[in-house]
Each structure stands twice: as structure tokens, then as C-alpha cells.
């Protein structure tokens, strides 16, 4: 008991223990949230979901971006990528009759972090509207 008390009050041991506990907790969180699920929704400028839009997932390269995957939105405008293996992916949406969306960069705290976009990706004005 005395040894335990001496160890706990020792600043070197306390610092090492605190670091080990923090690293362990972070690793546990990462292990339980690293399926690489990146989901979101596509909407037009009026906020209506766009079905059948093509969502392109990019990864940063030495110069520019490299495409790694594509998904098509469902009837609710939702899309989902899995196991993308990135920590800083980017998304862009293309749809027939619409202007391409701006590039949406997604920041993740670790590779393959599960993340759902807070706001929908907005694609441009409907080019078919007169």
C-alpha cells in the first residue's frame, strides 16, 4: 500500500500512467469507430434531395487529388462510402442537369473514422430550368 502510494505520488510514474491511460482510451475509441463509413446527403440549391447523383470520393495526392470511389445517391439523396482508408478525403457531386458541386473536404481525426456530414452537399443550379 505504501509502495503504491509512493508510486502514485511520484510525478514520473503519474505522468507515464496518465499518458498510457490516454493512449489506451484513444486507441479503444479508434478501434470502435474505424469502419470508414462516410455518409451524407446531396441536395439542390432549394434544399431538395437529389436522387441518382454521382458522388465522387477523392484522396489527396502529391499534386491535386486522386479519385478512389464513386457512389450514386438513393431516392432520399443519401450516399455512403465504406472503408475508404483516408483521413482527409474530398467529395464532389455530379448530376445530369445540374452544375457540379464545389469540392467538399472532410476532416477526420483518424484514418477510416466513421463520419456523417452535418450539412448536405449542394449541387448547382438546374441547367434544364429556363
Amino acid at each position, binding site marked *: 500500500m505504501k509502495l503504491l502510494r509512493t508510486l502514485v505520488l511520484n*510525478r*514520473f510514474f503519474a*505522468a507515464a500512467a496518465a499518458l498510457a491511460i490516454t493512449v489506451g482510451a484513444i486507441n479503444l475509441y479508434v478501434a470502435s469507430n474505424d469502419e470508414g463509413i462516410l455518409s451524407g446527403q446531396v441536395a439542390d440549391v432549394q434544399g431538395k434531395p437529389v436522387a441518382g447523383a454521382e458522388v465522387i470520393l477523392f484522396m489527396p495526392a*502529391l499534386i491535386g487529388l486522386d479519385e478512389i470511389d464513386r457512389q450514386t445517391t438513393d431516392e432520399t439523396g443519401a450516399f455512403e462510402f465504406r472503408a475508404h482508408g483516408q*483521413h*482527409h478525403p474530398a467529395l464532389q457531386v455530379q448530376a445530369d442537369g445540374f452544375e457540379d458541386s464545389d469540392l467538399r473536404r472532410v*476532416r*477526420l*481525426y*483518424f*484514418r477510416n473514422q466513421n463520419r456523417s456530414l452535418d450539412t448536405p452537399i449542394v449541387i448547382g443550379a438546374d441547367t434544364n430550368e429556363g
Partner: protein
Amino acid sequence: MHRYPKWPIHLALIVVSIVMLTPLYWVFKTSVAGENIFSYPPSIVPKDPHIFFFVDVWYVIPFAQYFLNSVIVVAIVIILNLVFNAMAGYALTKTFRGKGAVMLVLLSCMMIPFQATIIPAYLVTAKLGLLNTYAGLALPELSHIICILIFKASFDSVPKSLVEAARIDGVPEWKIVYRIMLPLSKPAIATNVILSFIWSWNQLLWPLIVVRDVDMQTLPLGLSYFLSYFEDTTGALYAFCVMVLVPTMAIFLLAQREFIQGLTSGATKE
């Protein structure tokens, strides 16, 4: 006796502290905000701080591998520094023929910069077959003359009667160092650990010359190569700097009391 006001001294110290700490604050601020150093006007408070630059550094370069390499080299350096410097410091507490010449040589060698000895150091390391190895990376850092002198000063302050009593009891010299001198010289040990840690952790030139494989690079070497990877890397670059600095600062903050005691031990005669 006239009492001088203390506030001018405190004011001067505060100003100096601000001047000294501003670059460090700037590094931390840029690592969480990513503001370009050439932007004008510069912002004092970080705008939209985040930790994603640290994430970029972790994944863009093999930071964990570089960190492990640095830790292994530093561990070898610290352990062998303690052994060699303690033995040398104890030897210098003795009186022997030529001691003055030895001290003169040691003090003279302190004035020779490491860069002037890098060619013979490389040739010796190559002949020993230690290029691109952890031992080769640690080899030039295995002993520091300043640390030898710190141990000497600390051992000089140990009462001679203790050593004499141990000799009378038949204790061998190495046990005198291990059981009597070192336990009474904890500040010197802490100083040795901190100084050897800082010098070996921040070493760039020697790893640049000795390392051949990317997997064997240490953190400072990885940082120098990181600069050549991307153009706009201000935030990530400063995040990398912070990640390299933090272990050194943590070690110093934990052991600063012993460090200061070790530097000042032997300064006053009892």
C-alpha cells in the same frame, strides 16, 4: 539600508519572458491555425483552431516509425552516457599523474565543434560496420564532456569518509560508484539524462550522414524531408515541430528541479 523597489526587476523579467516565449507561442498557434507566416497583418489569437494538422503529420509521414527510431537511439544514448560519464567523472575525482593534462585535453575538446570531427567519426562508424544502425546513430553521443564534469563536481561533494569507509570494508571501485556515489548524485544523473536526451533527440547532421533507409530516419531528419514534400505546409510543418518538441519539453518540465540542482551542485563549498 536603502531598499530598492522590486517592480522594475519584475517588469524587465516579464518583458524578457514575453520576448523569449513569443516564438514558441507562434509555433503552437500556427500548428493549430495554419496561418501563413508571411500573412499581414498577423493575428495574435488563432482563428478557427483545430488539430487536423497533427493528424496530417501522423499519416503523411511514418511519424510513429520515426518516433520509435528516435526513442531507441535516445535510450541507448542516455543509458551509455550515464555509465561512461559516471565512470569518467569518478576517475577525475582521484589524484593521479597527468590529471592536469587530462583535464586540459577534455576542456580543450569542448571547444571543437562536432561538425569538425564528422569525417573521422563517419570513417570510424563505417569501419565498425555501424552505418544505418541504431548503434551507429548513437555512437558519437555516447559521452559528453560537460556531463563528465557535472558528475565530477557532484562526486567531489560526496564526503571522502564514506568512500574510505567503503574501501576499508573491501568494496570494489565499481560498487563504490554504483552504491555510494550515484545514489548521492541524483541531480547530476537527472542533468545528464536531460542534456543527453535533448542533444541526441534534436540531432540532425549525424543521422543525415549515417542513415541510408527511410525506415531508419529519426524525427528531425524526417522533419527536414517533410519540408520538401509539399509546398503549402505551414500548419502541418509547425504541427510536426510541436510533435518533435513536446517530448523534450515534457522531460525537462518533469525533471527541472533535479536538473537545476545538478547544474548548481558543487557551486558552493561546504
